[in-house]
């Protein structure tokens, strides 16, 4: 079926100025003005670097987004994924017309409603009812539309008793529920949602995700930003991965999540982590035979632990979490499940290795999170610190395991009695 393109983003870029806006501003403005009347390009647009937070740049200007192009079809739920500072929020801001792009364009069919925050414009002195009307109108509904949906909204938010109480007396959860309820009853062709689901209890989150799925089933388009891979996964059907203001990957949602989890950590060795008086070096995944990690083979996680303090650390806990490429936590390995206690003396060095015999993982890419704990404090707490690939093998002794048999392979015995 040929689907209609509803949003077309073309070479979109956004430049931000770093540092303070102050004394330099007037002179920049004057420079710009003279460049303009002489028919030259803006002198400050040229300089600018990619938005890598971690490195110190030379210029005062950065590109929060650079030459972003993509298209969205009608009825798609696009999950926008990326690290902090990758440009997700900037992209949403431009889409919701809160700020304009520096260059490039966005073209869209239909109304765009954005939900970058719930309860925008709520006035604490006004009652819940008054705020529903105010917030609805800010989001672009008419008074008539709101009136006809008021009962539904109140019902969805579950705050009927408090409807005529000023919202300053509401709990924060009630405020969020009311705000989301209003937004959920918008009927735009395109809905732009930032991480608003991070608030509210589990019950409400479920309700909210259900509501957004309904929205897309009715043929409308949703753009959704979240750091929560499981809500992205359950909601979206396509993904857009941003990195340093550029499109890194675009495609099917599971592939996008896998790509997001793997980029920048596609090495199977982490050279050094220095934290809280300890040093971890050469964290790596080592295969048993022929140096290939495969289903059913042995697999060892190994690192060197150095104590750089003058204290003795007794009973250090090491925890590995294994995640699959969809970001789902499969299982945990804890050194306390074993008998020996790991202690390290001042300035000591110990090789820590953990072996899984007969690795019960199917073909695919997996991620390792490492936590090192002493007492109640984390010495190291790193999510998805490295990834490793597992190759297919004859795990069950009945031929190669099918890729679609799930991430974890478990042997089972069956009995058939008459």
């Amino acid at each position, binding site marked *: 079926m040929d689907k209609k393109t509803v949003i077309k983003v073309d070479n979109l870029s956004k430049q931000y100025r770093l540092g303070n806006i102050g004394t330099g501003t007037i002179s920049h403005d004057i420079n710009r003005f003279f460049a303009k009347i002489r028919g030259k390009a803006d002198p400050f647009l040229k300089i600018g670097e990619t938005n890598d937070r971690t490195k110190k740049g030379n210029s005062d200007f950065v590109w929060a987004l650079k030459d972003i192009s993509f298209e969205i079809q009608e009825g798609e739920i696009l999950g926008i994924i990326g690290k902090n500072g990758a440009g997700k929020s900037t992209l949403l801001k431009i889409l919701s017309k*809160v700020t304009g792009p520096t260059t490039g364009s966005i073209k869209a069919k239909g109304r*765009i409603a954005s939900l970058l925050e719930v309860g925008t414009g709520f006035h604490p002195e006004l009652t819940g009812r008054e705020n529903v009307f105010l917030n609805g109108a800010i989001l672009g509904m008419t008074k008539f539309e709101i009136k006809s949906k008021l009962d539904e909204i109140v019902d969805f938010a579950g705050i009927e008793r408090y409807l005529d109480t000023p919202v300053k007396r509401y709990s924060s959860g009630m405020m969020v529920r009311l705000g989301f309820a209003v937004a959920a009853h918008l009927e735009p062709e395109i809905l732009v949602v930032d991480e608003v689901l991070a608030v509210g209890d589990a019950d409400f989150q479920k309700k909210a995700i259900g509501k957004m799925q309904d929205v897309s089933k009715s043929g409308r388009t949703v753009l959704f930003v979240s750091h929560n891979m499981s809500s992205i996964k359950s909601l979206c059907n396509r993904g857009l991965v941003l990195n340093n203001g550029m499109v890194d990957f675009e495609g099917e949602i599971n592939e996008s999540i896998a790509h997001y989890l793997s980029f920048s950590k596609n090495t199977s060795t982490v050279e050094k982590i220095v934290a809280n008086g300890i040093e971890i070096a050469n964290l790596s995944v080592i295969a048993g035979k022929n140096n290939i990690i495969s289903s059913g083979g042995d697999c060892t996680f190994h690192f060197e632990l150095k104590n750089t303090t003058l204290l003795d650390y007794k009973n250090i806990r090491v925890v590995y979490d294994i995640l699959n490429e969809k970001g789902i936590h499969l299982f945990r390995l804890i050194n306390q499940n074993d008998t020996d206690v790991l202690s390290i003396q001042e300035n000591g060095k110990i090789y820590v290795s953990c072996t899984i015999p007969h690795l019960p993982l199917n073909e695919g890419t997996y991620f390792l999170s490492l936590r090192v704990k002493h007492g109640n404090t984390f010495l190291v707490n790193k999510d998805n610190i490295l990834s490793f690939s597992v190759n297919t093998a004859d795990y069950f002794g009945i031929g190669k395991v099918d890729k679609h048999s799930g991430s974890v392979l478990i042997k089972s015995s069956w009995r058939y009695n008459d």
Partner: protein
Amino acid sequence: MKEMEKDDAWDIVIEPKSNLLTLNLKEVWRYRDLLLLFVRRDFVAEYKQTILGPIWYLIQPIFTAFTYFFILNKMGGIPTDGIPPMLFYMSGLTVWNYFSTSLTKTSDTFLANAPTFGKVYFSRLIVPLSVITSNLIKLALQFGLLIFFIAYFHFQNNNYSFNWHWQLIFLPIPIILMAGLSLGLGLIVTSLTTKYRDLKFALTFGVQLLMYGSAVIISLNNTPEKFKSILQWNPIANVVELFRAILLANHPIEWQGVIYSTVFLLVMLLIGIVIFNKTEKTFMDTV
């Protein structure tokens, strides 16, 4: 395939530059409910948890007028154009207050609403328009008070009597002029303050000083000739004088001044809309 796509099929086009002169009244109209809700919010929220509520709107001009009456008229001996001093000051203050509160609040459009503007798009012009509208309610209350004072002086004071005359139908003109002037100037100031906060201080200070040159407490006729020729170029002073001339008939309406103020208004409004349009797209980055 490519050729089949029609470019004009897009409903929304987001681009770096927009046409600076588009007022987009269609969009303003689409958000008309929001305008009314903002007016209501301003009115309801301002006096919540006060005992006197909107009566404060009436207390303010009475006390201010009385202060001027006592200091300028009684002690300073400055004449009031043959009108009872209280009426003179109160009539001036009624239109002046409308202008000054509208201007100071519209000038705060971007700064005060940055949290909302940063999260959702709606026609930005709605906010300044709601300000001049909600101030109309205050104006109406204060105008009612003025009528009450006129009636009081008419029946109690032998030196003054109010005359009905056909020129009273012009009464909306000074109000519209004040609305337009405060909107135009407010749009300019608010757009510039997103980058240069200095203007915010200059404005509060400037508005205070401007009152003395706006015929609010000393009429143009009682100003020495030397200053009068300067003050005549103040569009606000012309409007204040117009309001008095219509309502209290202390002197004939000077249409020249009215035309000047109107032209001034149109120029300011034009400039205001241009800078406002230029600012609204990117002010979130500089505010």
